């Protein structure tokens, strides 16, 4: 559906040329939710603006569906944008228009007759759960409601692709989850392809199928979300995963455990999917007659599978540890010994 080929974007300024996007290639399939994560300044905002031609690449091609965005005429591009819509971090609603008028705006641009516009607006208001608020102005809405208007507005021309530019970054955690659920719902109902950029790893974890990690204009790692979380390769990915799991406090308590039980080893068990719900560790512990001290544990859900880990302190000799590892590996549970 979306194919980005060796795209580079350079901003020329008086003092220096800034390379915002550096030789990026990626593809997104129909119906997929694809995330791009990076810290601010990584080039992700510029990247997403290349998708609908708000920025043009300095080199490389952006292909959406059948069309090469980077070489379309202006009128053709405007027409195309009706099918590649966008939602924004700060919603960007027109304050001078009511909710219904905001949602109707793209339809006016597309030249849809008034009767049809009203019908479509009514459907969309219901879809995003804003019934009864049609005649309110944006200033009368909460952040989450404003983003719902933004989403309804983006859907009004029945797009094929929805671009989300930090769409939840200005929202509180609870509202973020509501908006993310809404995105998944519309993806399923309208068979949309969604590309979202964010700096929040839990957004990626919660709804994305695949994701790319960006740093300094480059994509440093791409893969299925579960793989990124379980087995991050690049240091930036590792940092994002770590931030999401929030290990720092756990690391502190490890030191205390080591002081109290100098002979014990701290192990990290990693689980994926159904294993995270079965009592494997308990079975193994019984079998080897071990005492274990549970330090911390964690199960996180991605959009299709859960994964988790468990930190335990066990007093165990090296031979038993090897057998333990082998046994758990048979059950697809990974074991890592935490360094002293």
């Amino acid at each position, binding site marked *: 559906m979306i194919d980005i080929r060796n795209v580079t974007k350079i901003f020329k300024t008086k003092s220096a040329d800034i390379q915002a996007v550096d030789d990026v290639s990626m593809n997104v399939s129909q119906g997929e939710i694809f995330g791009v994560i990076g810290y601010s300044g990584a080039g992700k905002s510029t990247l997403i603006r290349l998708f609908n031609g708000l920025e043009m690449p300095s080199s490389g091609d952006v292909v959406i569906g059948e069309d090469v965005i980077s070489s379309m005429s202006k009128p053709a591009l405007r027409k195309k944008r009706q099918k590649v819509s966008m939602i924004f971090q700060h919603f960007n609603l027109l304050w001078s228009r009511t909710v219904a008028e905001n949602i109707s705006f793209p339809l006016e641009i597309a030249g849809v007759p008034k009767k049809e516009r009203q019908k479509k607006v009514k459907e969309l208001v219901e879809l995003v759960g804003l019934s009864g608020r049609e005649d309110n102005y944006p200033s009368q809405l909460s952040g989450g409601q404003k983003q719902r208007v933004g989403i309804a507005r983006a859907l009004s021309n029945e797009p094929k692709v929805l*671009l989300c530019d930090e769409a939840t970054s200005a929202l509180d955690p609870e509202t973020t989850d509501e908006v993310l659920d809404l995105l998944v719902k519309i993806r399923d109902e309208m068979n949309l392809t969604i590309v979202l950029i964010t700096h929040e790893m839990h957004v990626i974890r919660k709804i994305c199928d695949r994701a790319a990690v960006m740093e300094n204009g480059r994509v440093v790692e791409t893969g299925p979300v579960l793989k990124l979380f379980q087995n991050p390769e690049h240091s930036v990915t590792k940092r994002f995963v770590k931030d999401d799991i929030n290990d720092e406090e756990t690391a502190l308590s490890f030191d205390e455990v080591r002081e109290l039980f100098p002979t014990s080893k701290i192990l990290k068990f990693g689980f994926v999917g159904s294993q995270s719900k079965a009592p494997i560790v308990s079975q193994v512990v019984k079998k080897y007659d071990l005492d274990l001290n549970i330090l911390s544990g964690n199960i996180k859900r991605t959009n299709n599978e859960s994964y988790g880990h468990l930190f335990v302190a066990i007093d165990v000799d090296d031979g038993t540890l090897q057998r333990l590892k082998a046994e758990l590996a048979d059950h697809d549970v990974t074991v890592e010994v935490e360094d002293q």
Partner: protein
Amino acid sequence: MNELINEFTTMFSFENVRWDAVWEATYETIYMTAIATAFTFIFGIVLGIILFLASKSEVKASKPIYGITAFLVNLFRAIPFIILIILLIPFTKVLMGTIMGPNGAIPALIIGSAPFYARLVEIGLKEIDKGVIEAAESMGADTWTIIWKVLLPESMPALISGITVTAIMLVGSTAIAGVIGAGGLGNLAYMVGFTRNQSDVTLVATIVILVIVFIIQIAGDFFSKTVDKR
């Protein structure tokens, strides 16, 4: 001291005031202000939009367009109004067929105030959230749609408060124009109040002008507030 008291007594006696003349002068002032404000509103918005679009556009031609427009705006804003009237006399004669009376003042009033208002329009447009313009672009809006459906409605409170300030300035300009024969309350205050030394007439002219200014201000504030849904 006695002289001062005498002056005040004449001023508040209103014995020289011919009310029919006051009414006529008031009508002329309102007429000049209203027509000039209407045309200033249109020309100022057109110029302001040109300035705004040309300053942010990446098209090559936009730089000279911005340069020329900005130069003309600055030029006409810099000319003192009384000199502008005199300078424009030949132009006014051709355009209006007269250089006297309210109609003779209108071209100079518009040319004097439209550049001022254009700058206020430009400032108002610059205050529009860039994200909203970008959102309209992302929906496939062309420049005309953006002007009509985003730029004008989203800057309307600023456009209204700007035209309020400009209209009040225009009331002052009509009074200056009145001194050199344009009619209106300025003309009344000068020709009757000053040259015949009838200070009560000057006082009445002043009060009527103040009332006009207050009404414009109150109406402007009201409309600006009404359209502002932020």
